């Protein structure tokens, strides 16, 4: 079994995450994927924004960059461009990446820059106390949606696909071992990749919406998730309250830092 401690800054424990929070499951899954690929700790730059999941960068022994709210992908873009040999992994949440940081998210996907985004989707702003997020389902309760959320929610994987990402997968903390594979594939993929992980926030979402504690929420996740294959045979109505999991996109597209390096070679060539 993998010795997780090899990758952790144990002196920074205990974690700030609540009991029953799904974020720790994703953390372990990420570490298994990184270990499987065999990346050295020095060649990884892990960048995060603001929120519960974004605190992850404080606990892992890589080059870690905890940025401003929504801007992780923008900082990561600078890191990756200036040092393309670095493996740049972004840790972010639904509010961080698709509300305040939505612009960076779609444009990084459009450029198809070689950054892997692990997007913790818990359908809520956990750290600030349970405010409604772009992925809070319509009708659900949040501290700023006391009568039920009147807004439609985002399909954030679909957004990454439409914007041009090379690889998009959606998994849940219920199926953590499958998640390992998605994360591994995302990191290996040359291009912009997103793994949207459905993860429970019992404290700020589960309680208010009467789903229950972390365990109950994970069970609930299991009941509501269907594979892409199954989903393709289901009607839109049947899919209404479902989470479609699996590899949603895996395609070859020109990658941005590669393109830029070719441009440099071309310019240098024509100058000499």
């Amino acid at each position, binding site marked *: 079994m993998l010795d997780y401690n090899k990758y952790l*800054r144990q002196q*920074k424990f205990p974690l700030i995450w609540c009991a029953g929070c799904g974020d720790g499951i994703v953390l372990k899954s990420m570490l298994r994927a990184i270990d499987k690929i065999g990346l050295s*700790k*020095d*060649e990884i*730059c892990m*960048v995060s924004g603001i929120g519960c999941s974004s605190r992850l*960068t*404080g606990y892992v*022994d*890589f*080059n*870690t*960059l*905890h*940025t*401003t709210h929504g*801007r992780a992908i*923008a*900082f*990561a*873009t*600078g*890191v*990756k*461009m*200036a*040092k393309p*040999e*670095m493996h740049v992994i972004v840790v972010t949440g639904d509010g961080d990446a698709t509300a305040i940081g939505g*612009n*960076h998210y*779609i*444009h990084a996907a459009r450029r198809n820059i070689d950054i892997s985004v692990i997007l913790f989707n818990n359908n809520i702003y956990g750290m600030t106390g349970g405010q409604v997020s772009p992925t809070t389902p319509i009708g659900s309760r949040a501290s700023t949606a006391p009568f039920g959320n009147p807004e439609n929610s985002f399909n954030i994987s679909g957004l990454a696909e439409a914007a041009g990402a090379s690889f998009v997968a959606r998994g849940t903390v219920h199926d953590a071992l499958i998640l390992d594979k998605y994360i591994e594939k995302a990191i290996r993929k040359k291009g912009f990749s997103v793994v949207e992980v459905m993860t429970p926030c019992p404290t700020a979402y589960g309680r208010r919406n009467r789903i229950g504690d972390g365990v109950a929420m994970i069970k609930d996740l299991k009941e509501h998730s269907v594979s892409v294959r199954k989903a393709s045979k289901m009607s839109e109505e049947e899919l209404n309250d479902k989470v479609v999991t699996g590899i949603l996109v895996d395609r070859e597209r020109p990658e941005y830092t590669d393109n*830029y390096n070719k*441009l*440099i070679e071309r*310019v*240098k060539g024509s*100058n000499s």
Partner: protein
Amino acid sequence: MKQKNDQFEVKVITGNEACAEGALAAGLRFFAGYPITPSSEIAEILSMRLPAVGGKFIQMEDEIGAMGAVIGASLVGSKAMTATSGPGFSLKQENLGYAAMAEVPCVVVNVMRGGPSTGLPTLPSQSDLMQARWGTHGDHPIIALCPHGVRETYDLTIRAFNLSEKYRVPVILLLDEIIGHVNEKVIFDKKEKFELWQRETPDVPPENYLPYKFTESDVPPMVSFGKGYRFHVTGLVHDETGFPTNNSEQIIKFLQRLNRKIDRYADDIIQVHEDSEEGAKIGLFAFGSTARSAKNAVNLAREKGVKINFIRPTVLWPFPQKHVARLADQCDCIIVPEMNLGQMAHEVEWASAGKTEVIKVNRIDGEPIRPSEILDAIMERV
């Protein structure tokens, strides 16, 4: 336009061009920007020039992202810059504060135009002076430079990089629409060598490295990501290790050092051009493009036999308090012309501590202050 011989190169270029060239001479290797008048030429030139030196240019999706990308690039060791103007400068503030907090060297150019809001996009102004100092929230260190001509833009751009590397601080270069767009003859001495400063790197192995160590100099040594020193960078208040802290003693220690590191070196950072006359009772304080009119007004006044003490700072932040205090001791008044409603006059008043009268000469209509307007203010005091 170019003329060449073996030793000198004569060029007619704009301030924006000089800024881009100065940045390259300083070792710029990463630029992220967003189109905005009147700074866009800086991005355009660098999109053309950077690839040839192996550098990277990116037009980001917005100003906020551009500032973020600049910080990311600096953390992996590239000299990095962005350029913008008023509304864009407002958007930079969030991550400018991050750069100040995390002590990430970078240069931010603001080619000032009339504000507030969208204001006067194609007309000059000097109304972002206070924003340059206090635009981002919280007590933070900052350096802001302000050239009055094209050649000086080149030199101060190099200096901006040097200061940012030396003190691990974002440095703001305040041009204005006049300086950005005016064409001037600039003579480059090809043999001239510029001293280039690099951030101090640690002399300890990774296991002993403290990224925010309290050192005698107050500026902790900095190593780039990817060099075997794995550390944490955050915008949260942190201790020497770089990790967040809520410990009162640590918070005070850190925030005091962060601000002290510029305060204590103010004398080394500040540069003021002084043109004084024995016995002059009229003081004049001008900077940026307004200093050009001020120089002209000084010459006209001297032709009339009026004595003037003229000071022209090229560093606005930290504020040249001692120079102004001296001027206040010598003179009965200090005239402060500026293209705003009196932002620097306010600082001059504070620095002169009631010892002299501060006279404002202001324009806010996007027109430069003319020499005659400054001369009138001078002659009223004769």
